[in-house]
């Protein structure tokens, strides 16, 4: 749908201005608080179509919307900017495990990685604003679980967690099933379904 040859309606102009001025991604409710009455959702749809393929794009991150530059123009913009601090391998893996398994306990993360999480790893992810504590699991010891934040979606350009690459395939393959915490413990008695069946 190419609407760009039509006159934008007032709601669309208003939503455009509000999102442009906003310092943070905005929910539809937050947009409405500024714009007032009107079909915000339709306006967002109209704007998304209008900006598709342009140097600026309207994107949805979780339940929030924002303008950002198109990804293919990164090389033009990167020039005078600091490279984002590089996450360690442990940090990267831990973040991936949390994102694909959330909510997940520290012990479960350690079971997947086969190694203890060093003290700073979760701290770094939380400090970056990508990971948050997500309540306790009601099992003995009531361990804390971790999950990703809306900021995680924003930073990594994901509409929602469903957009995590390959998540549906991994789930179908049983690779995201609850982790057998006690691998090597013969008493675990957990029957592992054959993960190759439907892969």
């Amino acid at each position: 749908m190419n609407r760009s040859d039509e006159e934008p309606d007032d709601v669309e102009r208003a939503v455009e201005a509000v999102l442009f001025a906003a310092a943070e991604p905005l929910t539809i409710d937050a947009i409405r608080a500024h714009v007032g009455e009107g079909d915000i959702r339709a306006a967002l749809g109209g704007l998304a179509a209008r900006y598709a393929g342009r140097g600026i794009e309207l994107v949805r991150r979780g339940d929030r919307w924002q303008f950002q530059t198109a990804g293919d123009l990164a090389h033009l913009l990167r020039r005078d900017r600091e490279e984002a601090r590089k996450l360690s391998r442990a940090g990267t893996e831990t973040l991936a495990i949390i994102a694909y398994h959330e909510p997940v306990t520290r012990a479960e993360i350690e079971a997947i990685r086969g190694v203890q999480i060093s003290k700073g790893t979760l701290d770094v992810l939380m400090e970056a604003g990508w990971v948050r504590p997500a309540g306790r699991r009601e099992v003995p010891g009531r361990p804390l679980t971790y999950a990703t934040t809306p900021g995680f979606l924003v930073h990594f350009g994901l509409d929602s967690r469903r957009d995590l690459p390959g998540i549906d395939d991994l789930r179908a393959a049983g690779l995201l099933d609850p982790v057998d915490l006690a691998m090597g413990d013969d008493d675990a008695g957990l029957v592992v379904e054959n993960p190759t069946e439907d892969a």
Partner: protein
Amino acid sequence: MADDPATLTLDIDGWEGPLDLLLALARSQKVDLRQISILELVEQYLGFVDSAAALKLELAADYLVMAAWLAYLKSALLLPRDPEQEPSPEEMALRLQLRLERLNTMREAGARLMARDRLGRDVFRRDAPAGLRTVRKAVWGAEIYDLIAAYGRISARTRPMMHIVADREVMTLDAALERVSAMIGATIDWAAIDTFLPSGSARWRTSALASSFLAALELAKQGRVELRQQAPFAPLYLRAAP
């Protein structure tokens, strides 16, 4: 294993734990992880541990625990089947393979995540947006009841107070003095103070007792009566001074 907090984790050539090492070895088989030979993998791992020992490298405990477990798995896979054994060696091998696959999957997922167009690195928001402002305006609420109740409260608190004592039967000290003086003249011997009291209501008699007692003290001070009491709270006797 990894859950033991006392385990010393030593990075050996950049491996993060025995599972990481196993995964690296498995990938060196250059086949899909689902088709790796577990037996071959076990040989590779044990070979690595042996060579580390030969080099007098001190391996972290969890590498040795894994080596022991793999040696056990190897023997279980090679020896005649024990139908009683749970889980079966095949299942144990499958679980190991699944763990490697999971770790590998997450490693790849992490790499793909990091390679995405990341905000602030590849895509950008406005650097200095004007920002949206919310101006908070307080709307004060109070009900008329609150108002008048408050005034009532202040008035009650600050109005001048007039204390009115309810009228009750009282024998004044003067009356008691007169009465006791008169009665003492008519009595020769010691008499308990009770006998000086008039009849009447309990309250009246209480007041009369108090007043008469004070009158007795006053008369004693004037030298007109003598007082006698055996013990504290014992009956008080009085008679005219000789």
